[in-house]
């Protein structure tokens, strides 16, 4: 009798037919909505199902259907469309050599936009690199976003960060790190601080399903459970972590929401491409937090239609047309269908809005380009790399800066003669 070592494989590789039969998809409206103060042991089943509001015809059905105005939905839709257009244009800019790198969030827009719209103005998001929709939904200037991607003279981060590693305290958006998962436990800390101070705002953590394997994920759930922390811990399950499908993170044996159950935390699992479900589940979890009940883990089921980044080529590890086969559709199309069916949207409105957004995005990016791109090399000064490491620059950094400036002066002189 010999032992076997099994390495999980995704259901479909390049050249094969996409296969999402592993996803159990209940009908919209099928899942109950418990009171926000329910004990987490009574709702364990919610971590194994999928909360859905929008059915395939665009109708909002069931107990989770949120009370939300068409105006608010149109605002969210606009933000999703803007995010998609911004991603498209920035991807092009990167291919043109204006930026070194870019990461799109195509297909996942509803999660960041919906949470940004639903949560409070003082709530703090601890994001991954795929929540640019949050900034756009909170009207953070597109110009500033693009300037950061171009690392140009107006980059608020002075060229220090790779493209898309935004920071926007005024939008409730914590500085993005390149290290996976570190933000998750930080979100718990932020919420612990708010609770210690008797505040009424909360933090939300974002993490991808792949990064739930990191230690910070487990620390976050342990600390959140131990202190009943008023935090929302989102798991954005977009099925892929670069080339690793969700099974490599242990997803074949349990849902990611179900990880919460082992820690004694309420776990919800929801359709991440259903804008109304995003609003509804977020609203529930926030109410639970501010009522002092405790944390909620929400697994959002979505699909990473984009490549991981501009350095990635998904055709090398998954079927090219996999997104077309994705059973939960496109969040933008589904919300438009819902609004249209409710008489609150039309194809013409869609065309006009998209044209407006395209012009707005084009103008913002054009303005950002005027401040410099990778092509013209206009960026923050070399000597500025020594600023902001410490609150006050210590002597040894001053000496290093002086050395760099002296060297560059010498090089300039040499070039001039």
């Amino acid at each position, binding site marked *: 009798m010999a032992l076997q070592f099994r390495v999980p494989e995704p259901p479909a590789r390049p050249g094969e037919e996409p296969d999402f039969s592993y996803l159990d998809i209940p009908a919209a409206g099928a899942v109950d909505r418990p009171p926000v103060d329910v004990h987490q042991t009574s709702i364990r089943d919610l971590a194994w199902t999928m909360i859905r509001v929008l059915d395939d015809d665009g109708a909002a059905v069931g107990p989770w259907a949120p009370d939300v105005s068409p105006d608010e939905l149109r605002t969210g839709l606009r933000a999703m469309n803007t995010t998609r257009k911004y991603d498209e244009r920035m991807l092009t800019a990167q291919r043109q050599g204006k930026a070194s790198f870019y990461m799109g969030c195509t297909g996942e827009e509803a999660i960041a936009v919906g949470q940004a719209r639903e949560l409070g103005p003082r709530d*703090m998001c*601890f994001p991954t690199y795929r929540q640019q929709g949050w900034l756009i939904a909170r009207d953070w200037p597109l110009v500033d976003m693009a300037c950061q991607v171009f690392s140009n003279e107006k980059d*608020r*981060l*002075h060229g*220090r*960060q790779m493209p898309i*590693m935004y*920071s*926007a*305290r005024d939008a409730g958006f*914590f*500085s993005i*790190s*390149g*290290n996976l998962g*570190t933000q*998750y*436990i*930080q*979100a*718990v*800390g*932020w*919420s*612990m*601080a*708010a609770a*210690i*101070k008797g505040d009424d705002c909360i*933090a939300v953590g974002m993490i991808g399903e792949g990064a739930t394997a990191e*230690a*910070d994920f*487990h*620390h*976050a759930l*342990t*600390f959140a459970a*131990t202190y009943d922390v008023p935090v929302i811990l989102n798991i954005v399950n977009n099925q892929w972590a670069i080339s690793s499908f969700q099974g490599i993170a242990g997803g074949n044996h349990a849902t990611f929401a179900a990880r919460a159950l082992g820690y004694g935390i309420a776990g919800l699992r929801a359709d991440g491409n259903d804008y109304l479900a995003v609003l509804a589940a977020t609203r529930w979890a926030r109410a639970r937090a501010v009522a002092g009940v405790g944390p909620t883990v929400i697994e959002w089921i979505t699909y990473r239609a984009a490549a991981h980044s501009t350095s990635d080529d998904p055709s090398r590890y998954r079927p090219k047309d996999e997104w077309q086969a994705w059973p939960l559709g496109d969040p933008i199309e589904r919300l438009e269908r819902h609004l249209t069916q409710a008489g609150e949207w039309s194809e013409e409105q869609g065309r006009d809005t998209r044209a407006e957004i395209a012009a707005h995005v084009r103008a913002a990016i054009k303005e950002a380009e005027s401040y410099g791109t990778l092509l013209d090399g206009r960026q923050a000064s070399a000597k500025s790399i020594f600023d*902001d*490491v*410490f*609150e006050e620059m*210590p*002597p*040894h*950094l001053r000496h290093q800066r002086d050395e760099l400036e002296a060297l560059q002066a010498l090089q300039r002189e040499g070039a001039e003669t």
Partner: protein
Amino acid sequence: MTAMAMNVAIRSAMDVMLGRDEDVVVFGEDVGYFGGVFRCTDGLQAKHGRHRVFDTPIAEGGIIGVAVGMGAYGLRPVVEIQFGDYVYPGLDQLISEAARLRYRSGGEFHAPLTVRMPVGGGIHGGQTHSQSPETFFTHVCGLKTVLPSNPYDAKGLLIAAIEDNDPVVFLEPKRLYNGPFDGHPERPVVPWAGHPLGEVPDDHYVVPLGQAAVRREGADVTVVAYGTMVYVAEAAAAETGVDAEIVDLRTLLPLDLDTIAASVAKTGRCVIIHEATRTSGFGAELSAVVQEHCFYDLEAPIVRVTGWDPPYPHAQEWDFFPGPARLGAALQAVMEP
């Protein structure tokens, strides 16, 4: 003024700051109800409340990660890592996050946290209770690294560290918690009571970061030391008769190069002593800067007396620990023409 042992002085610093600044919170493993395995937080929870001083799960990465998040909110966390040997799971949050947060966010966010941990040997603790990890921190721009040698400095430096808006790693030589130790284990333990640096003000005061202290003036050789090695140096000087000038760094980064350079310019000789392992130890950095700035003042090569490289053994404690015999031999050798 009160005679305080070093762990008591450290406690006093936290007590003063908890009373003075309502944003200060203290947490770590066993620091709450129990008061810490080295008694550094004894009585603080009872006095200031569970929402200010509390126990955490056993997760160094979690402790420091939570501190980063709290700092982003606006609190001023002072966390304890139970032994410096256990800090490694927390290095990612300390190095990748706390140290870089101000820089990478263009100043929007910062991490005003203090991370305390007992370090060093001389206690038969073996490789998991005796390490000196200071160079993991000094190598990271964005962290300040502090290591006091006595109760007076410990309290003043810890208050300065807590008030500092940058992340500070505060390393406490555990062999010195209860009294100075000169590297002679066969001698009776000496308490801090009666030692001039064991007299500590009861209230708030600051010993500035980034300033070394000359513990003993001398003309023959500059001994650069910190922590327990300050007392080893005093013993070695007394036992060999070498007129050593002993510089107690107190802060490793930012380094007080001026004090070191002035001393080496005067003496012409430099011996560095630290408990940490030799290769890539802080002595390597000190050797480089002294060489860069004081080459023409030197009469002899710079010498490093350090812990040996292997993992810190248990039974062979005194073979590993750089004591006065080893330092004394180095002092005599460096004085040879």
